């Protein structure tokens, strides 16, 4: 029987939430296609991650432990996992569409001489063929494809499957990959954590974005204040391409087609007209609030709620009201 392999990911020893989602996605495919769900994790200090994976719903957990692989290395992790996959008869290999997934999964796919559908939002198994649906053109369209080669591979967009943390206890085995430090060509030397009060844009429940309508970079304080009003760890600050290109905000905050695609529960577009590139990056948010003084701005076409007004008046009042509510 062929198996469904999930490549899990640990950061500073703890398992990433998106890896639990990948196990759930793997179980969904196993229910249709058969086979066991086997989770593979690579690194050095893996005890906490192994424990979390054992309770994720996977049938088996394999830990590839090595001091040489304590820090991520695309070529090193690829070599270690490829060596392990050879004996596991994979029908399917899944991974989160994370920074590591984007770096590692294509390498594995090339090594396995197979395809990969990346950033998928749905998996399919029809007439004995694996397939997936993914957003293309930054979400302006969706593409469904089926596989002509084996194994099937996909990276999964975060927040599309529900990860489990108390779904049984899988058998855990340890293996020592035959990769030595001297073999590694690209290796992470240092991980510099972002300021702890910052919520990652793509993981935030609320995103407050500002655009040209704020007139000056200093006025982004109004955006930061509204984000902070939701309390710690809830809201992230986003920006339109125009203000990133103008140098007001760092590119990592850009929401849109050449920035990040976000889908929070609540999205505030403040002083953003809603260029098509921006809409592509946020229009799958659950609820969208637009604040703009131009009643004809395209942003109002996608917004659930709109206020036609001056951001300099609306934002302070909204910040006070949110503070009073949450």
């Amino acid at each position: 029987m062929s198996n469904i392999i999930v490549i899990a990911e640990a950061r500073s020893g703890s398992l990433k939430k998106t890896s639990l989602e990948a196990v759930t996605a793997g179980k969904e495919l196993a229910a249709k296609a058969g086979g066991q769900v086997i989770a593979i994790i690579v690194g050095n200090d893996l005890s906490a991650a192994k424990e979390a994976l054992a309770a994720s719903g996977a049938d088996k957990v394999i830990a590839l432990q090595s001091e040489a692989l304590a820090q991520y290395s695309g070529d090193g992790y690829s070599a270690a996992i490829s060596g392990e996959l050879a004996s596991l008869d994979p029908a399917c290999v899944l991974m989160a569409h994370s920074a590591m997934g984007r770096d590692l999964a294509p390498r594995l796919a090339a090594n396995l001489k197979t395809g990969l559908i990346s950033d998928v939002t749905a998996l399919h198994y029809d007439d004995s063929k694996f397939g997936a649906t993914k957003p293309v053109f930054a979400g302006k369209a969706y593409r469904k494809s089926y596989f002509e080669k084996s194994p099937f591979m996909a990276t999964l967009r975060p927040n599309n499957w529900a990860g489990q943390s108390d779904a049984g206890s899988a058998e855990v085995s340890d293996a020592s990959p035959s990769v030595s430090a001297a073999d590694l060509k690209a290796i992470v030397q240092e991980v510099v954590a972002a300021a702890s009060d910052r919520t990652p844009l793509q993981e935030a429940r609320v995103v407050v974005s500002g655009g040209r309508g704020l007139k000056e970079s200093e006025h982004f304080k109004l955006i930061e204040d509204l984000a902070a009003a939701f309390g710690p760890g809830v809201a992230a600050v986003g920006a339109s391409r125009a203000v990133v290109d103008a140098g007001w905000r760092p590119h990592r905050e850009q929401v849109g087609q050449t920035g990040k695609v976000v889908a929070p529960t609540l999205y505030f577009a403040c002083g953003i007209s809603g260029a098509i590139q921006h809409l592509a990056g946020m229009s799958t948010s659950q609820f969208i609030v637009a604040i703009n003084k131009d009643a004809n701005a395209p942003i109002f076409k996608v917004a659930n709620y709109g206020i036609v007004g001056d951001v300099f008046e609306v934002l302070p009042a909204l910040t006070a009201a949110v503070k009073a509510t949450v």
Partner: protein
Amino acid sequence: MIEIPAFLHWFALLAQGPGRAAAPTLQLVIKVMDIVVCVKRVAATDSQIKIAADGKSLDPAGIEFVLNPYDEIAVEAALAAKEQFGDSTVTVVTLGSADAQKELRTCLAMGADKAVLINDGGRSQDAFSTAETVADYLKGTAASLIFCGKQAVDGDESQFPPRLAELLGMPCVTEITSLTLEDGSLVAERDIEGAREVVNCSLPAVISTNKGLNEPRYANLKGIMAAKKKPLEEIEAAAIDPATSIESLSLPPARSEGKIVETVDQLVDALKNEAKVL
């Protein structure tokens, strides 16, 4: 890299087999760094996407095609590397139809030295067949530093750079926002979820570029004129079948139009009691 004697490159050329080594020019022999940029022609980001009659592809009517925005950053990084290392060539490579000559000329106008179109007649490719085809071509060259945009803004796959690296036996650093090139190695930074990685990497290597790395230069009139005379080689793509077949391309469901509220109090009330998100 800069200390590598010229004769080593002569040997490298000889080792590439009779096809390439038959007529190496003196110019090629003295180059010490062969920098390659892999680029793609894509629909501009302000395009309104319409689905073609086959239900599987983009309707190109009314679409403006441009150089992929992340590839502009890759070209700029390659030109900066050439400026740093001096005696090097920057070659831009694309896989696509003859239409992509326009985007290759854009790269030449920015300052790339030569361009290669691997012409597939516009047939459907996926990341698998694209990487295999381009890797087959690059295996016959002395490419030692390969830049790519982090993803093409059409398929948004972000697969090509690591695939290419694996096929060429090279390391890869993806989505970089800063780069320091040294002799035989590099240090790059990349944003990951909630943090930043500093990556050490030996050369040769494949690098994929993210926004924030640099400000791509504009092609000036002199560059545009010069680009017309620069070499643009065209070769036929090998017939490699994609690993995936497209079933359908569809538009997402349209969002229903919302409502305009007059006051902040009404907005907060709606978010709390209708949307139930506060």
